[in-house]
């Protein structure tokens, strides 16, 4: 697969116009000016194919699945042709020493220039023994790979924020990439899994402009994570009218009413699902009748349960009964003391006579 990207695409039956159209749409999604679409198309078409090393840590391969496997060949999948994916355990044919050798080779040849993609969280517990590759802990591997990377892309919620492995009680001591690497530009592309077009958008931006796109305070590309699911949700008007589905199969659910009461985390979840949708624009969780889980936010797994509305207590109120009893006990104690005090004041009462009116 040598030569410019466009040749590869054409070989796979994707026309230049299709690619141009795709780039225009991608630029639009990333809130770039229309001219950027053309610039991206030109840059990517003539891609200089940077070396990319993809490290999987504590992950489920869902992120890889999301980006590379769809029901039909997609441009997202094809776009991987514009990079030189020099190490990806799941996709690469090589194994064992051969694979490790490829990684070291790529790192050496492209020192300071390669892009590092990470999916999965990094376990710190038991000296990192929970997840090792080639006899080395993920932590070591990450530190080594990050040292020579131009930038790091944390793919998915695990790499971005720790994800499910970090969920309470976090037995492996999982942390995110940005918890460890502090001296490299890091883009977080959270989601469980993340939306494929975000990955391609970030790659396209990097290839076109040589920089990472603008990020929010959690390191996510603003153009995709700038707004909440709730803000862009087609069910939003029902929220404003106070029309809520109460169960998953009631009249309200059938009428497409708001899923807030069923635990939808749309209001606090920043992602582009409502606009990009999933599976080639077929649908997305809320459209299929289920509330948003909030998977692109840190610690979404521990945010009080998927089926509990945001305004409901995240945990059962454990101390209230004790507090009520304690309050009553304090109250009774004070009452007894007060009554004793009042009683002794009464007992000490000396009948006032006229003379007692004077000091």
């Amino acid at each position, binding site marked *: 697969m040598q030569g410019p990207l466009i040749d590869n695409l054409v070989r796979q039956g994707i*026309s230049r116009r299709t690619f141009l159209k795709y780039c225009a749409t991608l630029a639009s999604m990333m809130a770039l*000016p229309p001219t950027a679409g053309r610039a991206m198309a030109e840059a990517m078409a003539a891609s200089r194919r940077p070396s990319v090393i993809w490290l999987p840590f504590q992950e489920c391969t869902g992120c890889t699945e999301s980006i590379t496997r769809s029901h039909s060949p997609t441009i997202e999948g094809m776009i991987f042709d514009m990079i030189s994916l020099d190490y990806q355990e799941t996709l690469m044919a090589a194994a064992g020493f051969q694979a490790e050798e490829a990684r070291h080779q790529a790192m050496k040849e492209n020192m300071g220039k390669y892009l590092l993609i990470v999916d999965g969280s990094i376990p710190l517990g038991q000296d990192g023994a929970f997840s090792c590759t080639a006899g080395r802990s993920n932590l070591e591997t990450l530190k080594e790979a990050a040292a020579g990377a131009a930038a790091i892309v944390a793919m998915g919620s695990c790499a971005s924020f720790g994800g499910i492995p970090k969920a309470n009680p976090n037995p492996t001591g999982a942390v995110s990439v940005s918890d460890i690497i502090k001296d490299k530009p890091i883009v977080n592309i959270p989601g469980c899994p993340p939306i494929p077009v975000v990955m391609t958008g970030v790659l396209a931006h990097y290839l076109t402009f040589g920089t990472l796109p603008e990020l929010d305070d959690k390191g996510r590309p603003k153009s995709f994570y700038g707004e909440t699911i709730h803000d862009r949700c087609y069910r939003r*008007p029902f929220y404003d009218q106070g029309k809520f589905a109460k169960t998953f199969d009631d009249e309200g659910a059938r009428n497409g009413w708001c899923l807030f009461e069923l635990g939808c985390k749309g209001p606090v979840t920043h992602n582009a699902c409502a606009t990009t949708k999933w599976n080639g*624009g*077929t649908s997305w969780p809320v459209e*299929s009748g289920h509330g948003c889980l909030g998977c692109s936010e840190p610690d979404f797994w521990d945010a009080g349960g998927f089926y509990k509305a945001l305004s409901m207590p995240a945990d059962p109120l454990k101390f209230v009964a004790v507090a009520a009893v304690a309050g009553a006990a304090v109250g009774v104690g004070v009452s007894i003391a007060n009554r004793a005090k009042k009683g002794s004041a009464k007992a000490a009462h000396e009948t006032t006579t006229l003379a007692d009116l004077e000091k």
Partner: protein
Amino acid sequence: MSIDAIPIHVINPLPTEPGLTGNALPLLREISEMLRRLLETGESTAIDLSALPLTPIDLEWLREKLGEGEIAVTLQASGESTLNETACPGVWWITHRNENGAVTSQFIEVSFVPELVKAHPEDVKIGRDHLELLISDL
């Protein structure tokens, strides 16, 4: 699979935004300015309609004001795209759809011919090679 096959439908869709936001009118002035530039310098320009705070009603209003022109181009590329000339020649209304027919992006392009309609020299070369191969085979 098309979305219509999924049996969840909004039975009582809400009426769309009751009114115009007022953002569409300045856009007409912008387009007129873009046309002036096209005539003076030959420079093509475009507006990304999804980047602007326009309601469906705004878009409808804009579309209606710009009118229908003589040329309507249909592009089959990972879903259908339409590149329609408006009643103002040089102003093109471009809608990209995906394989499912959903609108993925919308542009107004001000150019003599939309960029996407023109054949790329590389493609023309491939076509010529293909044609020459065809002739030599005859």
